[in-house]
């Protein structure tokens, strides 16, 4: 009895009750929007976007410097009407991105199908070396290719850039198609064979369509990586084979021109549009 009363009294102690309530309140508060992680996340977003916003703002500046002298579209005019070298570099980039990504997609897909289906001696070798370029710093690949091309006396130019890009694009396509093949139902292949399809028919009519999401995302990843690459390209490019990143680099290095601001804004918008389209496209493919 005594104990019980003591218990009741303890429970009724105002201080205790307050503490308990406060703890509950604190817990509820911590689940509310402004938690620590959210604060960091918002700060990180500001950190990530601030430079881009500054670029956008100053691309509309009338004067060359960072002192705001009024709104103007002069840099956009410069960009679209008076930057022939820049656009040549742009088309070089597109050409290389599409061709190297295409080549890498064909080889990568064939390689993935081969590794996945056939058990052969070099299987481990293929899998190991396909991971290597992803774990080596870019500069190593750039330097080694540069020395390689010098060694076989190959003239540096668009072709060497194409080869370099295809090489570093390959593993991405390979891995993405592999991921798709891993969840593959082999009985479909057997069924195709049973129904009289030969190897080539099976490959084109069954395997490729099933791998399509992997192939498409591999190709698109390859295109974006290729468009983005500066370091490797820098080492394997020759005179007259400027890509867009190389052009931007020299513009930054030798006298910053606000045309680059305008170009950046166009590219950022392009990125946003592409990201959005890609997402919808992948959703569409996945739904199919």
């Amino acid at each position: 009895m005594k104990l019980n009363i003591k218990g009741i009294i303890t429970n009724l102690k105002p201080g205790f009750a307050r503490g308990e309530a406060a703890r509950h309140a604190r817990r509820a508060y911590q689940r509310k929007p402004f938690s620590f992680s959210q604060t960091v996340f918002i700060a990180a977003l500001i950190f990530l976007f601030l430079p881009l916003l500054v670029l956008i703002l100053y691309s509309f500046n009338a004067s060359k410097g960072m002192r705001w002298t009024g709104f103007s579209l002069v840099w956009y005019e410069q960009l679209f009407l008076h930057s022939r070298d820049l656009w040549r570099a742009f088309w070089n980039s597109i050409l290389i991105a599409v061709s190297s990504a295409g080549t890498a997609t064909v080889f990568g897909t064939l390689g993935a199908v081969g590794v996945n289906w056939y058990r052969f001696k070099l299987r481990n070798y293929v899998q190991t070396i396909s991971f290597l370029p992803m774990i080596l710093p870019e500069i190593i690949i750039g330097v080694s290719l540069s020395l390689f091309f010098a060694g076989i006396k190959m003239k540096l130019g668009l072709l060497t850039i194409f080869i370099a890009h295809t090489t570093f694009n390959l593993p991405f396509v390979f891995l993405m198609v592999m991921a798709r093949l891993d969840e593959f139902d082999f009985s479909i292949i057997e069924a195709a064979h049973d129904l009289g399809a030969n190897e080539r028919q099976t490959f084109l009519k069954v395997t490729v369509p099933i791998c399509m999401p992997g192939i498409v995302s591999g190709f698109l990843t390859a295109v974006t990586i290729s468009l983005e690459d500066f370091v490797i390209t820098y080492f394997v490019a020759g005179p007259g084979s400027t890509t867009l990143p190389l052009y931007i680099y020299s513009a930054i290095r030798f006298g910053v021109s606000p045309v680059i601001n305008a170009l950046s804004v166009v590219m950022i918008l392009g990125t946003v549009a592409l990201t959005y389209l890609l997402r919808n496209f992948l959703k569409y493919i996945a739904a199919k």
Partner: protein
Amino acid sequence: MTVWFTIFFLAPLLIIVLYSFLRKGLYGGVSMGEFTLEAYRALGNPSFIIITIRTFVTAVIATFITILIALPCGYFMARSRNQTFLLLLIIIPFWTNFLIRVFAWMNILGNNGFLNEMLIRIGLIDDYIHFLYNQSTVVLVLVYMYLPYAILPLFSTIDKFDFSLLEAARDLGATKAQSMIRVLLPSIRSGLYTAVLFTFIPIFGAYAVPLLVGGKDSYMLGNVIADQLTKARNWPLASAISMVLTVITTAGVLIMINLQRKDASRTSEQKSKGAEN
């Protein structure tokens, strides 16, 4: 594919190994057939050792800061209901051209840049501050560049985490910080390793960032390789430094893979023990 890879990837790598043991040619390049350890002996040079240490320290610090920011971000994203939208937000700067992002920072930090203009306008400083071309700027921009590389793997691992475990920890009396450190962190270790790897390797091999926003005293190994290759035309030395870079990153990868494997076996052991009980 195998053929392509062997020719254009493996062969070039082997050339680096080979060249690093050759003597420098009279007019640059290499002179074939003269094997020597000259290039490796040149690595003992104090200035080179300083650069190696600097590169390593820079990479460790930048990776550490990146992970420190990325962890709460990944956690927040994983717990959010708008995951796709938040992912999109992270991916947009990530897909903006690398050089343009460096350029944006040069715009902000330059002597006539955004930050200086702002500080002068609000009267905080009278004269320009030199923000660019030093070690801390290199770290700042590197963190900026590789933050998404850390956030994305952390997010996808944390996303698979069972959050009710955190509540269980709290109910058992752990504070919020305790439950994070002792429950969440151990279970997302594999994502943590991936994030560390994804940031450490490119930062360790960084070339463009220190070149553009760093000064002479913040040069990293990547810059030395490029200089030796293009300016000094000392191919054996460039190759030997590349070997150092390769060895250190490969070591990093192997350590991480090993840790991951140990982790995996430990978890499966625990699971089988749990099953026995």
